């Protein structure tokens, strides 16, 4: 299965329909039964919409005798992959009683549902949501005598996700290991993740760290015994890994054991990795999922880096100091927007910074307010977004200073040279001058002369005088 994460082959995310919408899917059943057409593992039932090449791919990816990790009757596995032609397949595998030929072992039963890539958004770009609705809809229950051509199925799109299980899996494996696995999955490396517990939650956590438009190219399996012929990017396995180690020797497949191998190999965190790791650390998986689902189809590394940097900065605002916040504005709001998401993120960042500075400066002293004045004035020419923010904050500072120290406020206004800023804060300038004039009425004559000179100094502000 070809894999390309460069950003040119991904599908444009579309707006998700209402939650109660049902997604039409084709279905296929792969298991071992005796039929007039023969016996052994094969597709025993498939809805009419499935193409021959899709059935061939499903048969190749589905497990046969002894193909599940674990030998108990409760053993289950899931798989998600893209089919030839671009449709997506989600498959649930389980045991279905004893192998019918009497040669020992349990029969493995796989039900696969196939849907269009455009419908993936209705499951929040999360194949585990598909597995959950399949389970709750009874599609995980073996049906050994199905119609040869069963009708397609309508999958509801409102699964119940257990956030706490994901958080626990993240905690068990550790954020560093998850980061390492995510980096490999994003770059298309094949990885086998060996866990002591069922790997589903861990793999889901990693999968949700991948930008949504890329996800349909990341095939995954949990609970299937590793087979080099099933080219899953992310394969979660349990149990003894000796056979897997032997099979993958000399091939570009990496086996990791987060619970047993100590620390992961060192790797460089990029902004996206940092953002996802922060969410894992704070156990905010839902927030992460919502954000990664917003990513636009331009998933080039540079675009992701910009998007994640904006997001990371927005999350740092809550603890940043004014100097840092103003630097952030200078750094992030000065860039041009590449797409709608970036534009929105910049607006969100600007809004968050404004709220934070308003909160800080509403209780700040005169010294604190004037300390950042030059940096604040320097922001305005950077970009339209920076201009809007700068104007709002300049107005706020001037109003505060006009109350605390009208002369200091007047001195500050003298430093403004940007004509558009002066026009935008006209009302605030008027307030400052009014406050200064009130102050002059009771001021010492020597001080008053100096201030009157200041008042007369800027003919450009004549229109603002009372």
């Amino acid at each position, binding site marked *: 299965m070809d894999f390309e994460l460069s950003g040119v082959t991904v599908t444009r995310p579309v707006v998700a329909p209402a939650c109660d919408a049902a997604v039409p899917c084709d279905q296929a059943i792969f298991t*071992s039964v005796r039929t*007039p*057409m*023969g*016996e*052994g*593992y*094969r597709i025993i039932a498939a809805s009419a919409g499935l193409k*021959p090449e899709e059935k*061939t791919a499903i*048969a*190749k990816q589905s*497990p*046969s*005798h*002894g*193909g599940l990790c674990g030998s108990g009757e409760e053993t289950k596995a899931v798989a998600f992959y893209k089919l030839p032609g671009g449709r997506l397949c989600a498959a649930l595998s389980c045991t279905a*009683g*004893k*192998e*019918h*030929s*009497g*040669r*020992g*072992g349990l029969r493995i039963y796989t039900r696969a549902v196939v849907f269009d890539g455009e419908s993936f958004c209705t499951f929040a770009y999360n194949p585990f949501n598909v597995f959950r609705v399949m389970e709750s809809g009874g599609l995980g229950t073996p049906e050994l005598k199905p119609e040869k051509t069963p009708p397609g199925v309508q999958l509801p799109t409102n699964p119940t996700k257990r956030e706490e299980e994901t958080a626990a899996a993240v905690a068990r494996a550790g954020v560093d290991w998850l980061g390492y696995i995510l980096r490999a999955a994003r770059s298309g490396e094949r990885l086998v993740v060996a866990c002591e517990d069922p790997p589903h939650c861990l793999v889901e956590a990693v999968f949700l760290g991948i930008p949504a438009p890329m996800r349909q190219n990341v095939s995954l399996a949990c609970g299937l015994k590793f*087979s*080099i*012929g*099933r080219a899953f990017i992310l394969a979660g396995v349990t149990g003894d890994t000796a056979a897997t180690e*032997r*099979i993958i*020797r*000399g*091939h570009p497949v990496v086996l990791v054991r987060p619970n047993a191998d100590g620390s992961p190999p060192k790797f460089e965190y990029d902004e996206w990795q940092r953002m996802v790791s922060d969410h894992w650390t704070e156990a905010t998986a839902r927030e992460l999922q919502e954000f990664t689902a917003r990513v636009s189809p331009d998933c080039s590394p540079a675009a992701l880096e910009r998007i994640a940097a904006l997001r990371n900065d927005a999350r740092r605002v809550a603890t940043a100091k004014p100097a840092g916040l103003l630097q952030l504005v200078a750094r992030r709001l000065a860039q041009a927007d590449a797409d709608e998401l970036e534009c929105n993120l910049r607006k969100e960042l600007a809004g968050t910074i404004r709220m934070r500075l308003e909160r800080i400066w509403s209780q700040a002293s005169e010294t604190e307010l004037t300390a950042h004045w030059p940096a604040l004035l320097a922001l305005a020419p950077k970009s339209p977004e920076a201009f809007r923010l700068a104007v709002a904050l300049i107005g706020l500072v001037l109003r505060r200073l006009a109350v605390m120290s009208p002369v200091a406020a007047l001195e500050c206004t003298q430093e403004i040279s940007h004509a558009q800023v002066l026009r935008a804060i006209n009302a605030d300038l008027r307030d400052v001058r009014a406050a200064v004039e009130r102050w002059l009425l009771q001021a010492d004559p020597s001080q008053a002369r100096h201030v009157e000179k200041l008042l007369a100094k800027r003919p450009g502000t004549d229109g603002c005088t009372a």
Partner: protein
Amino acid sequence: MTTETETAAETQYCLICEHGNPSEAVLCAHCYAPMALIHDAIRQNREPCIISVIGDSNVGKTVYLGFLLDMLSKRAGDFEAVPKGAYSINLQQTVIGHLQRRQFPPKTPSEADQWHWAYYQVARRVRNAPWFDLVMPDMAGETLAAEVESPKTHVVIENLLSKTAGCLVLIDAAAAALGSPQPDLFGLKLMTYLDQMFAGKRGEKIHNPVAVVLCKADYCPQCFDAPRVFAETNLNRVWNFCESRLANVEFFATSMIGSLGFGGDEEGNVVPIPLHTAPRGILEPFEWILSCLE
């Protein structure tokens, strides 16, 4: 230049599909055949001879191959057989071990990386007899069926059969004797697939030896007396195809299990229990193929 030489030294080409693999690889990345085969073949410094055993799921390929290898290693039929590598013993060990416990060996998984492969050096125990390096995989019937239905789905089968010197096609004689058309039809599918694989010039018959092995012949003893007559009567489609397209074909009857008991599991499946083994007609097809290849 140095780099190229080093790279070439590190790459080993799969015996089955000729795909380049790093020297430390255990399985071929392309067809999943064990790379130990190539290591052993290099040591012999002779072109190995691939003999394939093919047939439908549950026809008895694993048991037949397991018995054949076991008999060869016991010098049955005046053959000298030397297994190359411990992996070559795994199949016969599995088959003999299970049958000794009165169980059939487990189903062969469809995943090619789980198959047993055997590499044997075989020669008759007579002066100056040629040695054959035989490579024999135990393929899953399902995978064969899938490949026959959609050729090029499983590269290992395609490559293996295209390199096969001689082929044993196993057909369920017991089912055919009971009137089931399935063995005949699936046998015909296999034959047409072989025809595509071995195809030479247009209209020319195929010269690779093909032994049609009628399995479970203890259920229809007339098979042993006249396998050709049995095939012509009960497997007429296969018979006709063989007559039309194969220049080197012979029919053999075989049975491995002397007596069979039947039990049932809690789900109502009939569980056959091999009470004792009585191999009959195991070596003959193999012997015939070797004589054709000599």
